[in-house]
């Protein structure tokens, strides 16, 4: 990760057509948005495993895993929105433009904030796990729609996606390297944070068991 940060600022060339140093932000903004998607997909998969797998003591772990993934996903999605807004300010003068991609990520934030609200509203562990898992699985349907389909409709201020219609790489090799490195770095970061969070959750649960 450290190498990525250094490379983002010194090694990669500036993208053409971007104001000043602002394109550097891409190396963080894009991977963060991508990782938030990975996080929510992870949450969805873990939720599905909880709901449809055979019921064993491993269940609670799956539920904790899904919840942890959503928490971290929300962090990354928020960061992605903020970095995107900063960049928008630099490029076009205002933080918010109701660009479909910006709107998409906001709705995603709302969706998973609602997930947290749902968890708060249910006291019973088993019911909480089951219902939030259902909502998490529904997210597998809604999220791809919000991340990928909705932004394609209508005019967008977002630059062309990296791989455009002809399938050719439009981005300079160095930029691409840093971008990919950054993405993998952030992904690893996510999994590391996720496993930490799951372990914390497991310890808390065990503490609760012992107290009773």
């Amino acid at each position, binding site marked *: 990760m450290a190498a990525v940060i250094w490379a983002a600022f010194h090694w990669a060339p500036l993208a053409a057509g971007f104001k000043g140093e602002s394109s550097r932000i891409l190396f963080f903004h894009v991977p963060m948005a991508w990782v938030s998607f990975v996080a929510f997909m992870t949450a969805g998969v873990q939720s599905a495993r909880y709901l449809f797998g055979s019921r064993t003591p491993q269940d609670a772990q799956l539920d904790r895993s899904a919840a942890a993934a959503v928490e971290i996903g929300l962090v990354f999605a928020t960061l992605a929105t903020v970095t995107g807004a900063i960049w928008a300010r630099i490029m076009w003068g205002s933080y918010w433009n109701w660009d479909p991609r910006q709107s998409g990520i906001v709705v995603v934030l709302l*969706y998973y904030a609602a997930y947290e609200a749902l968890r708060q509203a*249910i006291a019973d562990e088993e019911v909480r796990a089951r219902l939030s898992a259902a909502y998490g699985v*529904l997210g597998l349907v*809604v999220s791809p729609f919000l991340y990928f*389909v909705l932004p394609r409709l209508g005019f967008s201020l977002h630059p062309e996606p990296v791989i455009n219609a002809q399938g050719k790489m439009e981005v300079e090799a160095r930029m691409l390297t840093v971008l990919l490195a950054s993405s993998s770095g952030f992904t690893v970061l996510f999994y590391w944070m996720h496993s930490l969070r799951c372990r914390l959750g497991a310890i808390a649960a065990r503490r609760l068991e012992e107290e009773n």
Partner: protein
Amino acid sequence: MSSNWAAEAAAVFAKDWRCELRTRHAVATLALFAVTTLVVASLVLGPVGNEPARAAQIVPVLVWLILLFAAASGLPRAFVHEEESRTAIALRLAGRPSAVFAGKLAHVVTLVAALEAIVAPLAVVLFDLRVADGFAFAAALGAGGLAIAAATTLLPAIVAQGRGASTLFAVIALPVLLPALALAVAASRAALVGIAGGDELTLLLLYDGAVVVAGFLLFPAIWNP
């Protein structure tokens, strides 16, 4: 237990409508809200239909917002009421989950259809709308209506077992319905003006299908421990 699935779903559908017709609660809430808002809007906006471009900008958004809020206030009752009045216990013991869901969904779909049957013609009349492609307009209404129905059936089932069901429903329904509504507005707008809205309509139908299928898959787990 020797019942067949369709008979069970039909029984739930019939029971919901029978109860509804005796109280007329949902129908009254929906109609009152929708008609009042439409009339107020038309008083303020006047016969916007005379300026087709302006009408295309304003009216679809307005109509869909009205449909959304009417539905959100009148429909979550489907499951929330069952839980709150504890009739859900008997329903859980006696009925197969997928049949219960199908019956409830059918009930809500018919309610939404009835709502749209009131709102759409009224909007056309009050705003003096010229609809370029009536068929596409109806299709947009149908597809968007299905999204609203699916969301207001499935999501209350999730929130009904938690505290503060009504407010929680609003929080949860919004992100799920926003994409559908954006597409429905776009498709309706296209139909009003007469340009091609096929893409939006297709995507909307796909979204509908995905949500309904997800609903059937998820409901048994939501309904029973």
